[in-house]
């Protein structure tokens, strides 16, 4: 029976080609769209987490209220002991201290006079302890364009565009002009050891990256940090777990009456990331619903068109005694075969495109210049397990649903009318 139907589909292209093309292209689009959105959202969340928010972030309450200014005067004090305590209390997380600061990079000439100056945003991270995941987390090694990573104190990296603007080369001395944690005017010399490029405008404009202990010395922040970022050791953000950890921490360390008490926020509460996390959770459901609804409508219409074209055939078959239920059943089986092959073809072509987008990505840096949240410049798709079934199952279901709706017409045919129709 199936073989018979299969042959019919192959020989009568009008019966199979349009539904096949509709199903396969719909499935392909769904697979590509899912992989693309998963990649874009996932990349943005992880990018923000690694560079800015962590999976959770600890700050003082006062710092949290002015977080956009990274106010180091409101930094956390006594971070050594705090880190020890939270590392024991939350063993599933790796905690990293960071200092985000602002200042001016002043480049001296041979006589020590200012040769070039530019505003800089700085990040102080653990680069020299020998037991740090920060270099990998910020992808610094791969982003290195020139020179090398800091290997000793007072060495720093600068974004390539900034170094070019200031005429800086590895080995050159540059002076950070800034304010200390207590508001004192500070000058601190760094030696440029390399330049980096992250592919995102926010970071590539004027970033300085140095070891956190040097930044502490420069900004008079002994045993203090602007922020402590927590990362799940699995590497993946877990919203429920992050919320539970934050609640536990805040009940122990936070007090509304003390502006310098500590506050832990989870990723969705930072950098306007809430909508991305929420959207990410709901993405699959939205995609499946939209796909099944849209495709069912298209395939219903394709089925109706096919039904019209095969009006005579169905009439003949009913006239020679075939049961309406049997005609309906064969239509459903045909659509199942079309759905199966169409979905399969759609998944294969969709995966091929997604794989290309995953490896090559699309550079949308030009559109991200004024983005309020930190976004990577190159967006990539991400193929996940769901990519294999997110289009396949709806592809099958929608072809069946479309045929079911279109095939209802068979039951409306009146046997008495069939011969008149055939005679005509």
């Amino acid at each position, binding site marked *: 029976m199936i073989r018979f139907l299969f042959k019919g589909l192959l020989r009568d292209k009008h019966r199979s080609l349009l539904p096949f093309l509709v199903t396969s292209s719909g499935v392909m689009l769904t697979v590509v769209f899912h992989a693309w959105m998963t990649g874009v959202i996932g990349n943005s969340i992880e990018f923000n987490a690694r560079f800015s928010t962590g999976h959770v972030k600890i700050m003082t309450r*006062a710092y949290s209220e002015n977080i956009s200014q990274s106010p180091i*005067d*409101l930094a956390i004090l006594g971070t050594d002991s705090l880190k020890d305590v939270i590392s024991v209390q939350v063993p599933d997380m790796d905690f990293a201290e960071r200092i985000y600061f602002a200042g001016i990079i*002043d480049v*001296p000439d041979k006589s*020590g*006079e*200012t040769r070039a100056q530019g505003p800089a945003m700085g990040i102080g991270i653990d680069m020299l302890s020998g037991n740090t995941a920060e270099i990998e987390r910020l992808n610094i090694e791969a982003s290195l364009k020139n020179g090398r990573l800091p290997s000793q104190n007072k060495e720093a990296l600068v974004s390539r565009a900034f170094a070019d603007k200031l005429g800086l080369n590895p080995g050159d001395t540059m*002076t950070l*002009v800034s*304010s*200390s944690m*207590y*508001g*004192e*005017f*500070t*000058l*601190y*010399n760094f030696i440029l050891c390399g330049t980096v490029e992250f592919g995102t405008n926010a970071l590539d404009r004027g970033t300085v990256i140095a070891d956190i202990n040097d930044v502490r010395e420069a900004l*008079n922040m002994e045993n203090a940090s602007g922020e402590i970022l927590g990362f799940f050791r699995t590497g993946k953000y877990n919203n429920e777990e992050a919320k539970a950890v934050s609640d536990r921490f805040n009940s122990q360390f936070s007090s509304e009456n003390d*502006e*310098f008490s500590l506050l832990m926020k989870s990723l969705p509460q930072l950098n306007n990331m809430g909508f991305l996390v929420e959207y990410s959770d709901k993405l699959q459901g939205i995609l499946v619903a939209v796909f099944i609804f849209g495709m069912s409508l298209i395939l219903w219409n394709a089925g109706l068109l096919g039904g019209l074209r095969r009006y005579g055939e169905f009439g003949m078959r009913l006239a020679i005694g075939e049961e309406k239920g049997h005609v309906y059943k064969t239509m459903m089986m045909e659509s199942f075969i079309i759905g199966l092959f169409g979905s399969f073809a759609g998944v294969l072509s969709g995966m091929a495109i997604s794989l290309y987008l995953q490896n090559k990505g699309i550079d949308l840096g030009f559109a991200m210049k004024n983005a309020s949240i930190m976004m990577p410049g190159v967006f990539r798709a991400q193929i996940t397990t769901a990519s294999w079934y997110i289009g396949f199952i709806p592809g099958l279901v929608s072809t069946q649903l479309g045929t079911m709706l279109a095939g209802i017409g068979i039951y409306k045919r009146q046997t008495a009318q069939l011969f008149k129709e055939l005679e005509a």
Partner: protein
Amino acid sequence: MKKLVAFFLLLPGSCILQAQFPDGKEILSRIDQNMTSENRFYSSSMIIHGRRTILTFKLKTWTAGENKSFTEYTFPVREQGTKMLKLDDQLWIYSPGADRIIQIAGHMLRQSVMGSDLSYEDLMEDSRLTDKYNAKVTGTEMIDGRNCWIIDLTAFIPETAYHRMKLWVDQERDIPLREEMYAKSGTLLKRSQLSNVVRINERWYPKKLVFKDMLKEGMGTELIIEEIDFNVKIADHVFSKASLKK
């Protein structure tokens, strides 16, 4: 008609009220005689009452006229040897740690000194009020048991740091005991209280000044003059960039 009659009846009274107050410019001139000098040296302690901590700095300052000033930090150890040179509207800061001289100019001079409530202009300028402000006495008030004139000052030089000031001036000693500094928009920028007024030679001088930057959190900054000498001889080389690295 009634209004016209009332106007003419009140006019002599208002003239009498005006006449009771001395000329604002005259008071400013007497304040300048007390507060400014051709040159001076002073050592001071600057105590900054921040949001979390209290920081103390010790400084030595040499000033000549309105445009030349040189300051050296002697405490704390971290800041020891940090020097600032101000010539006209340019300021150079030397940090011994970095062995660099950095220039600050223009509006940056209105930035806070070491996180205090004072700007570089507040700390390093010794300009005469009469050169910048028109003054009008608007009333009297008792401050710390002393009769004071309330004087409204309006800048006639556009680039003046504070467009308007309000002073409470000790009627007897011609020293402001309270000051309020306003922006052109009318926003109160700073408030200061001057106390511990002592007689030094022919002049009165406040040895304790408490500044509060109203746009900043914190409890204000105290500037305590420990030693002050007016019209001392200061060598010209003090006000040169070469002296920063010495």
